[in-house]
């Protein structure tokens, strides 16, 4: 079991909306943290692409070796992340 999966909800919450570098199984992923699933410890990262679209990456909690914070993010990024997938039509 990795250190990441042993963290608690309050610790995972700390990373939300931050820009991070995740190392998992010797691979590196970068992006803004949308959430961490408290059941699987899977991390969801969002990347804003140049053409205005975005890509979403989920990294399996059990493969996570390290999570490093790169930036805090401004209110606009936070705003975009908050509203992503939450458009109340379900």
């Amino acid at each position, binding site marked *: 079991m990795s250190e990441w999966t042993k963290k*608690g*909800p*309050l610790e995972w919450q700390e990373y939300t909306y931050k820009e991070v570098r995740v190392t998992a199984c010797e691979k590196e992923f970068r992006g803004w943290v*949308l*959430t961490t699933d*408290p059941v699987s410890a899977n991390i969801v990262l969002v990347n804003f692409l140049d053409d205005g679209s975005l890509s*979403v990456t989920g990294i399996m909690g*059990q493969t996570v070796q390290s999570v490093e914070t790169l930036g805090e993010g401004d209110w606009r990024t936070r705003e975009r992340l908050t509203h992503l997938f939450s458009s109340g039509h379900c």
Partner: protein
Amino acid sequence: PGVPGAAEPLESREQQVRASLRERYLRSLLAMVGSQVSFTLHAGVQVTAHFGATDLDVANFYVSQLQTPIGVQAEALLRCSDIIAYTFRP
């Protein structure tokens, strides 16, 4: 709130945070239904497929049109223990 000693119990705050992290995770999975998803598997294998569903403990990904190096599989169950990460464009 904000008054020392009058704060809500840690357990209930943890539970609230847990629920909001989980809700955001489930919404991100819901947004992925029907999307083309690229999976990074162990042993350096990359496959793409249409996402269908996961079980609640996120142990399996049910997908269709799985494109593998040896051909297209109409339907498949990917075990999360074989996956490092997944990416899609919402």
